[in-house]
């Protein structure tokens, strides 16, 4: 059919994970020593054709397995799933950043991606210069940028700072400018990866408005997000990925509800491996109880902990790690940071792997499901790593005083036992 704009057929992507290696890149020395080692083994036991031990450290990992779907012209498709489900890999392949291992994609139209706002911004250059640079990187011509220049500046609200280097911008201004440039691309297919997670509420609203406008113009959008309300508002249908497989594709409500229904608790984010290019990097996270058992459901007032492992790759000052507890309606119920209680952490942190742990506030949370967002970076400044929906747990209320008459969830964001004092007079 002619109005099918993207056709994905049996798509697969394989990564090789090296377990021993510290760095993500190969050193020539290692290649040479590996070759010499395996040659040596062959000389010593030429008939032993088992794989040599140097290769056993490499593991195959399929980030995407046999994905097939079609997208029609003008459709807005949401892609949801847990972290590591393959959502971003899928977008990366569609946008041609990396190539698939298997299968193929047929695309009829110009693709532009908003994989991360501000990619290609240079801190030393001014706002004006960065608009041109970023526009060119995203595939706009000079004439096109000139034409849209005023519109971009107006959208970002940075008129006064056009000739200031962006390194002096506040993070809000930075994000606004970056989104403004990207939003003024005019591709037939737009890929959006979690860009709406930044900026203040008013700006997010405007971003959503802009996306709606793009939809009105009959453009096709693939939209990755953990924000179910955004997905519900924008998308007609949704693709659910799990461990690299397409679990379900269908109308938004059905798939989102399926995703949110209780089977989706996960108490652990498996080690994501090192990322030497990032200053701070979240490695893994898990929910545990007092006996260190991994657990995805807690009772009201039960003792539970969130344990996190993260890397710092260059020594940093004045950084912190924060965690937001988010309920099913995407509202942040409580936010906590490791510097809240310890001034000492504000001081310099050397590079290395850090392990940290804090108590789940089961004493104040109401019944329901909660997912955790982690952000690592400078307070109200630069964010080095941010991960949404890292773990998800449920909290059930079975307190002693709760007799069978309390059949429904108690109203309110929080639920805390207050010491009522009652006496007869």
């Amino acid at each position: 059919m002619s109005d099918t704009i993207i056709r994905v057929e049996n798509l697969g992507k394989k990564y090789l994970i090296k377990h021993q290696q510290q760095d993500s890149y190969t050193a020539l020395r290692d290649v040479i020593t590996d070759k010499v080692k395996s040659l040596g083994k062959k000389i010593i036991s030429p008939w032993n054709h088992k794989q040599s031990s140097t290769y056993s450290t490499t593991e195959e990992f399929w980030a995407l397995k046999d994905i097939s779907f079609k997208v029609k012209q003008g459709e807005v498709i949401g892609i949801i799933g847990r972290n590591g489900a393959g959502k971003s890999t899928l977008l990366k392949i569609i946008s041609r950043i990396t190539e698939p291992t298997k299968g193929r994609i047929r695309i009829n139209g110009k693709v532009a991606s908003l994989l991360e706002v501000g990619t290609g911004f240079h801190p030393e250059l001014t706002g004006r210069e960065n608009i041109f640079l970023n526009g060119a990187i995203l595939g706009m011509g000079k004439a096109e940028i000139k034409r849209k220049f005023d519109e971009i500046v107006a959208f970002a609200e940075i008129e006064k700072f056009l000739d200031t280097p962006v390194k002096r911008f506040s993070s809000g201004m930075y994000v606004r400018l970056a989104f403004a440039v990207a939003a003024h691309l005019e591709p037939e297919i737009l890929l959006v990866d979690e860009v709406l997670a930044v900026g203040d509420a008013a700006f997010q609203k405007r971003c959503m408005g802009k996306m709606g406008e793009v939809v009105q113009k009959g453009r096709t959008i693939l939209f990755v997000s953990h924000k179910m309300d955004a997905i519900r508002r924008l998308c007609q249908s949704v693709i659910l990925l799990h461990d690299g497989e397409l679990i379900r594709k269908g109308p938004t409500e059905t798939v989102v509800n399926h995703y949110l229904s209780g089977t989706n608790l996960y108490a652990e984010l498996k080690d994501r491996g090192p990322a030497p290019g990032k200053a701070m990097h979240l490695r893994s996270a898990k929910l545990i109880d007092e006996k260190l058992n991994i657990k995805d459901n807690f009772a009201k007032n039960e003792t539970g902990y969130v344990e996190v492992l993260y890397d710092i790759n260059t020594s940093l000052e004045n950084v912190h790690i924060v965690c937001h507890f988010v309920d099913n309606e995407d509202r942040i119920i409580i936010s906590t940071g490791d510097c809240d209680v310890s001034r000492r952490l504000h001081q310099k942190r050397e590079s290395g792997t850090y392990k940290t742990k804090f108590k789940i506030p089961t004493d104040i949370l109401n019944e329901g499901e909660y997912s955790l967002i982690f952000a690592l970076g400078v307070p109200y400044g630069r964010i080095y790593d941010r991960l949404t929906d890292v773990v998800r747990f449920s909290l059930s209320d079975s307190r002693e005083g709760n007799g069978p008459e309390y059949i429904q969830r108690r109203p309110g964001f929080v639920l805390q036992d207050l010491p009522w004092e009652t006496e007869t007079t």
Partner: protein
Amino acid sequence: MKELVIEAGRTERQYWKDLWNYRELFYFLAWRDILVRYKQTVIGILWALIRPLLIMVVFTVVFGKLAKLPSEGVPYPILVFAAMLPWQFFANAFSESSNSLIGNANLISKVYFPRLVIPTSSVIVSFVDFLISGIILIGLMLWYNFWPSWRLIALPALIAVAFAAAMGAGLWISALNVKYRDFRYIVPFVVQFGLYISPVGFSSSVVPEQYRLLYSINPMVGVIDGFRWAILGSDASFYLPGFLLSIGLVALLLTGGLWFFRKTERTFADII
């Protein structure tokens, strides 16, 4: 709109068309690098003039005055500078492009565009430096009242050869550096070493006749000799078989570089 097919191992037929569509990016990346380089410096673009000028002075004193090497009848500073131009261009392009892909890792892992744009832009940046230091040569020639001959018209062709050599070497080193970071240690060494084994501070006429062809295995020998032939009008340093050999090697370097770059380019985003 033609259908685009993304598939494993497919050498996109679209590639060269894409490269054309992104032609303005060559300019923008080069423009960015030039802008950024002289931000927060006091004398700015003058740095592009000072460095080659100082090396020229040192070489004139060491090779011309102290070692008293032959100058082919032209002022020694001009002899040195006519060679400094292509050499500096090559050396800068080589070291700039070696780090270019890694320096733009965030772009490579986030946005699609033909990766060839990145090292090429580095070469273009070095080419701008080359044009700027060309001013010094003109200044020197006016100072010594030295007039070039009709051979100067061959210069654009020779500049093209120098450009091809810089591109070829740059493509190889940038692609290799993505996977094997060892190469970033090799680059400064090659640049330093190359300055002395190439006929920059001296004329290649000092190389014994029977070794001239062997000497021309260094492709920059042909380029530098060509520059001297065109600018100074000196026949002494020009040796045709050696020149042809150098040209052939430059062509090989460039096509090999293109082939290798295209072959490895697809995996850049995964391994960078």
